């Protein structure tokens, strides 16, 4: 089998377990993915059917030659079980995971723009009142005439977010193969409708 599958974030909701507990879940529209090709040690999977006009001609021909639907996204994925490698053209569904499985979910986090040090690095900042005149500023960034420069790697304000983030060891709460939906406990990086990669976790005792 392969390590993971591609999906799209739907949004967050609430689900009730059999014991009646309420769990915050993220709903992921998960797959179906096609096995497109074998690339060395990895398998290439494709996701999200599109129209021909939204693909470049050579890319569209690539799928036609392989007798596959036109796909928007391609990703190379590790093989976890060497004995059971799916053939090219097979479809992978959300039911590759079962409720109770632990997964890692990767995506592009929400962009925060140019963020100050309090938001970006969790600096404490200063008191809001009592005339401190020191509120959200970074404070000292180093010495004076010796060393006469700022050391590289000092935490400062700058662009935050919009980078690849992996949320690890999330529990799968529910799977729906027909509707291609996966419910995962907790939050997942990125805005709704963004592309996600869901794989069997590499963390803890469930990891490979």
């Amino acid at each position, binding site marked *: 089998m392969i390590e993971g599958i591609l999906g799209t974030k*739907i949004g967050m*909701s*609430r*689900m*009730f377990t059999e*014991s*009646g507990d*309420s769990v915050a879940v993220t*709903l992921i529209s998960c797959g179906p993915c096609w096995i497109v090709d074998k690339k060395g040690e990895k398998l290439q999977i494709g996701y999200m059917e599109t129209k021909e006009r939204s693909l470049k001609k050579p890319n569209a021909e690539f799928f036609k030659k392989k007798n596959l639907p036109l796909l928007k996204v391609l990703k190379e994925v590790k093989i976890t079980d060497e004995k059971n490698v799916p053939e090219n053209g097979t479809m992978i569904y959300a039911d590759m995971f079962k409720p109770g499985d632990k997964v890692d979910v990767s995506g592009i986090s929400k962009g925060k723009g140019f963020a100050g040090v309090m938001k970006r690095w969790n600096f404490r900042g200063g008191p809001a009142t009592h005339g401190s005149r020191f509120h959200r500023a970074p404070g000292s960034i180093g010495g004076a005439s010796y060393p006469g420069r700022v050391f590289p790697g000092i935490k400062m304000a700058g662009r935050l977010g919009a980078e690849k983030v992996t949320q690890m060891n999330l529990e799968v709460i*529910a799977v*729906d193969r027909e*509707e291609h*939906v996966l*419910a995962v406990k907790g939050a997942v990086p990125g805005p709704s409708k963004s592309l996600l990669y869901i794989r069997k976790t590499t963390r803890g005792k469930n990891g490979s």
Partner: protein
Amino acid sequence: MVKMIKDQVRNNIPEFRPGDEVRVDWKVGQDRKRIQSYEGLVIAVKGKGINKTFTVRKQAFGIGVEKIFPLHSPLISSIEVLRRGKVRRSKLYFMRERYGKAAKLKEKREF
């Protein structure tokens, strides 16, 4: 709405609004078998879909108690409307400052 969420939405809930007095039979305990009744005034209904919750306020031994129930929770075995109140707003947080006779709401009567 996604099907797996839709499946969890309960359809057997009586209609009630803020200002109504309700009795909620609520499964408690380790095995969630014992049923406890909680009776009071609905002061708020929040959220929509499966996230909908309602707040029930009552006086317990002279102290105001509020409990927030998820409307679609399987732990709610039944909800009974005891009295319909006549109110003009959707959030009755002003009831927190009232006690005794001032905390009475006019009953809504249907003719």
